[in-house]
Structures are given as C-alpha cells and as structure tokens.
C-alpha cells in the first residue's frame, strides 16, 4: 500500500492500481453521503481531480494519485456511500487505473512515511 498527501491510498496488482481514501480522510470527512466516480475508459493524470466525496459537512475532491486509464469504478460506494466510513481502506475502494508507468507507484509514500506526514498536520 502507498499513500498520497491528499489522503488517498493505492495498492498495485500487476499494472492495475486500486485507489481509495484513507481512514484518516474518512474520519475527517465524517458521514459520507455522496460519491461521484470517474467513468471507465477515462484517461487521468497524476494529481487530476477525478472523484468527489461528500459528507454531511463538506465536499472534497479525490485526485488520481498516478497517471493512467480508469478501468473500473466501485458502484457499491455510489449506491451506499456510508461504506466509505466503514471500510475506507478495503472494500470501499473508489476506482482502478491501468498505470501508464507502474514504476511510478514506488515513488509514493509508504505507510511509515504517510504516518509521519499525518503527524505533521
């Protein structure tokens, strides 16, 4: 698992990266009531806003942590946004992307680096 400063997590299987928001992010947002996901087939750049997650309190963009093409979006969290609060770092993933450069995954923060980053906030 790798992490971004925008509080996304990424896991890699072959060339397919699965992206979600971290437990820290879901806790800060509070009860999630709406999720908007990218369409399969959309090309996304690293750092591009491509999803939206809204809680009762606020709306927040979710950025693509890496460059590639969206291959799947998780309809389950659109149908039941509260899953994001229950399972942010497992079944409530947001989307999967076929990476343009799988090696770029390694440049993201690992768990220890993300934890250290959280402690600076």
């Amino acid at each position: 698992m790798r992490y971004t400063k925008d509080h996304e997590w990424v896991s890699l299987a072959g060339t397919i990266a699965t992206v979600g928001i971290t437990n820290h992010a879901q806790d800060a947002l509070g009860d999630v009531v709406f999720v908007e996901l990218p369409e399969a087939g959309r090309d996304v750049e690293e750092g591009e806003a491509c999803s939206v997650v809204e809680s009762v309190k606020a709306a927040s963009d979710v950025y693509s942590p890496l460059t590639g093409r969206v291959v799947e979006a998780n309809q389950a969290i659109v149908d039941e946004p509260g899953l994001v609060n229950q399972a942010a770092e497992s079944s409530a993933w947001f989307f999967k992307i076929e990476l343009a450069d799988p090696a770029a995954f390694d440049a993201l923060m690992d768990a220890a680096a993300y934890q250290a980053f959280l402690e600076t906030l």
Partner: protein
Amino acid sequence: MTDEPLNLTPLDALHRELGGKMVPFAGYSMPVQYPAGILTEHLHCRAKAGLFDVSHMGQASLRGPGAAAALEALVPGDMIGLQPGRQKYTLLMTAEGTILDDLMVANLGEDHLFLVVNASRKHIDLPHIAAHLPKSVMLESHTDRALLALQGPEAVAVLSRFAPEVAAMPFMGFITTRLLGATCHISRSGYTGEDGYEISIPAEHATEIARALLAEPEVMPIGLGARDSLRLEAGLCLYGNDIDETTNPVEAALMWVMSKRRKTDWDFLGANKVRAMLEAGPPRKRVGIQPEGRAPARGHTEIRAPDGSHAGEITSGGFGPSCNAPVAMGYVRADLAAVGTALSLMVRGKPLPARVVALPFFPHRYVR
C-alpha cells in the same frame, strides 16, 4: 481570521470529555459533532431528544418603562403586544431596510424583555440597540449565562422530570423556574423544527444541568453539524447564509414577522425601504430547492433558469438525513419562485436538475 484565542463556553470541558470534535465558530470553540457523528445525531434528535450547547449566542435584557416601544423602533415585529410569558421571533433592521440580525424576544413582565441574538452578530447588535434607547431603558448583556437547547419529541418527557411545569407550556411560551436549584429561563422553542426547549442557565450551573439531562436515556449530545442539517430541513434561516445586511425581509420571505398594526404604521428603522419593496414586488425570493439527484448543492452554488440564464444562488445546502436526500434553499428571480419551477444547479461545472419546493423539507412538529 484573527489570532485571538477562541472563547470557551461554560460546557467546554464537558464537550471534550464527551469526545466532541471542536471547531472555531463565531469566535468560540464549539463541538461540530461527537463520536456518534452528524447523521446519527440528526436522526436521534428527530426520534428522541438531543442536547445542544448554544452558549455562544448572545443573551441580554432590555429593561425599563417603554422597553417594548423602544425595541419596536428597531424591529418590524409587534413587541408592545407581546404578552408576559411569551416569546417571539423578530428581526433587527438596518436603515436600508435589510436584516442586521434575527433574534428571539421574550416578555418577562414588568418592562423586562429577554433577547437571544446570534453569536456572530452580538458585538454588532448590542451596541446598535444601546445606541437607540431612551434614557429610561437599559440594555444588559448576560455574559454569565449559558444556553442549552433540548430538542426532539421526547424533550418534554425529559425536562418534565426536572420541572413538571414545562409540560403545559405552549409553543413560544416562556417561564422562569428552578432547575436543580438554579434559576433558569425556559422557552418552548428551538431551531430544529421539533418540539423542545431553550434553557438559559447561570454559567456555574450549566455543566451540572447538562450532565443531568444527558444522563436521561432519551438524550444524546448534538453538535453544530446536526444543528445545521436540522434547521435546514426545517426551512429555518441561518444568519450570514440565508439572510444578512443585503437581504430585505420581503425577499427573505420573512414578512410574517410583521403584525397588521406594524404594517399600517411602518415606524421602524428601514421601514420605508421594506414598504417600497413590498409595494414594488421583490426582485428575488428565498425558496426551498430540491436537487433531483443524490448530489448535494452547497452554499454559493449558481442557480440557472431552464433557458440557461442566471437565476440566483444557493444560500444553504447539504444533505438532509431525515429526508435521505439533498436539500437546499436560496434566492431565485421572482419569476422563477413558484413551487414546481424547474431550475439547474451548477455543481462542479455541470447543470444538475432541481425544482422549487415549499419549505420546510421536514414538517415542523411544534406543540400547539
């Protein structure tokens, strides 16, 4: 933002003990939610009873011969006709006929009015009122009092255990009584659309009374997050969002605060401007707006007419937990204000379908 330290309410330590997530609001450190979360808190308040700390709000007394007449010079509501033991919602006005603040006024009898004003406006309201008083009337700010709200269908059962006389109070009734030995002002009112009470308590007794109420099985502490979603579903204005110094009560759909006498005499600050808008018709109106999909439309979202022209702006919007849908209110051009009118909301650059609906979104359940 300034670097001034935040004010703390008398319940600050209790909020932290309860796990409240503290945020700055109107110069105070306030709980936006507790561990249960906004959705649960909101739904619990509608199902049973919720306790809110609203001690950040301004409480003041206006005392002396002619107090009601003096206040009438600044508000459009009927203060002279307000009976002892009754409370009324009204508006402080600017000379431009716009809204300086909205407030509650209760009549304690013997030329004593009790005011509750918004936290974000008390530093403006109180000097404004003081500057317009005759010598016989004094304004006193009660910075030594806390304010709690107990709201929800079970609020009456809970509070009656401590003060049986509250059960017989009518909506907008007001009494002074003892709660656990402390002299409290209690009104049957609130900001959720539910039955309930607001309780003004000497600060040193606030934590003890809050703990006693929270110990009752029906009661859960509720933060500012659910307070906002509850009031939005109830169609109630939030000062600074839905009304401010640029809004006239006519366009804000708040002319119901005026009595027949006051609409005859037009003798309050800014009255000529209000009357002029009433006679000419408002250019825009505050309405309820129902987004048709699941996406919430937040404050400042642009509203467009079916032909794509600019129609107005959302002033409050979010998710309504009891409606299980997004809810909003805002101002639209007067020609688009009829219930049922189709609109588009520009959310993240895309037009989302919506329509004008009657307020409230969730029916009021005040005792009558």
